[in-house]
């Protein structure tokens, strides 16, 4: 049973990808060696002692981490610093990398934790609680400014604005699944919650975006009942 939504966007906008989405998709099972990502294979070589693989691992992971952290922090120098810390943590723990494990969820989980820890010390506990918890429906202070809103002629900025209005838990689930392309199981592992919770949070974010961006939506298939229940 899968849900299918199709947004027809007039302007190219890579992240977030509001294309088709099937909440039941879980690609973490039944992965063979041949199906493993280049990043997984690079990490495997690095864990086995091939020091040259770290550069390759960096090239495969750093852009993704930097994009995620920049979107979350809206502070590029801070995001760069967190990318460095994330990759150094992975470097230190390379010997513990489990053969056959997926490296991206691990990297994203480390990056997210470092970001939360960094925010905790930079901005106090209130914002951290907002990020870690189910999220109050407040617009975080990293939302675009009024000037940006006035100038928001492009769809990308419009979507960012709408994303920023979402509760943090919903936005994070949506971004990991839609923007980072993670499976529901991977996103659940990164967020430390269940697949069902991620599915519901992402679904709610999707519905909220669909409502707020209704004028930009040309074709929306009605969701079936899979993700319409209440989050436990």
């Amino acid at each position: 049973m899968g849900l299918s939504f199709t947004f027809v966007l007039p302007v190219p906008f890579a992240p977030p990808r509001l294309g088709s989405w099937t909440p039941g998709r879980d690609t973490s099972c039944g992965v063979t060696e041949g199906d493993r990502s280049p990043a997984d294979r690079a990490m495997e070589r690095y864990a086995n002692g091939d020091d040259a693989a770290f550069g390759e691992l960096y090239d495969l992971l750093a852009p993704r981490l930097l994009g995620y952290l920049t979107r979350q922090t809206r502070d590029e120098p801070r995001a760069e610093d967190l990318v460095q810390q994330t990759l150094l943590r992975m470097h230190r723990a390379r010997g513990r990398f489990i053969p056959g494990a997926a490296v991206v969820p691990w990297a994203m989980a480390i990056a997210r934790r470092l970001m939360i820890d960094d925010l905790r010390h930079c901005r106090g506990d209130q914002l951290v609680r907002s990020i870690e918890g189910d999220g109050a429906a407040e617009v975080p202070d990293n939302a675009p400014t009024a000037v940006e809103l006035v100038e928001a002629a492009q769809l990308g900025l419009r979507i960012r604005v709408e994303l920023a209005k979402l509760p943090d838990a919903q936005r994070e689930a949506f971004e990991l699944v839609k923007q980072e392309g993670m499976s529901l199981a991977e996103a659940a592992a990164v967020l430390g919650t269940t697949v069902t919770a991620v599915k519901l949070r992402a679904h709610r974010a999707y519905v909220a975006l669909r409502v707020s961006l209704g004028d930009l939506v040309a074709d929306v298939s009605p969701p079936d009942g899979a993700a319409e229940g209440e989050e436990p």
Partner: protein
Amino acid sequence: MSAEDLRARVLAAAKNEPSPPREATVVHTRRAGQAATVVTLLVFLGIGGMHLHARPEGLVMGSAVGWGLVAVVATWIAAGRTRSMLGLPRAWRLGAALATPLALAAVWFAVSPPPGELTVPHAVSVDLVCFGFALALGLAPLAAFFVVRREGDPVDPVTTGAALGAAAGAWGALLIDLHCEMSDPRHVLVGHVLPTVVMALLGGALGARVLAVRATRR
């Protein structure tokens, strides 16, 4: 900073900080396990080793096998290798932390004769002695778990720490149960099972500090 500068900075930082590859880490992990086993056995022998004669044979065998299984399962959930770097789902680890003491108590009552037959009047100090010994027997396994897994849980270190603490406590409970000749239900619950709860709480508290991934202060 340009992308090239950032790349160069990260690669240089990694080069300046040696990290053991998998082969060395496996050796390190094995040594930590061996050291914990030796220390625990020394503590066990130091307090007197096994005393089996004063209790029903079925109770001794049943509780030893049952508690051993509980300890193995708790250890597998808390520290076992899965196909994910993020471990088993949080619900499993939380379940292990909460259910391990309950499982120990349930196994013991399942294999023991009716409680009235085993009740022996005794001082609380007797309970406390076993309580302390059980904690001492669980400390080395807990230390080994934390050494091996330090800064290794970016998602939920408190729950992982609690599960590791419960697993270590279960090993301590197994050994103290082999040592102690007292089969009074209250004594078993307070002196042998309750330390597992304390170890789970201790593991949770330590997990937040030792297992957590923390940002470097700028």
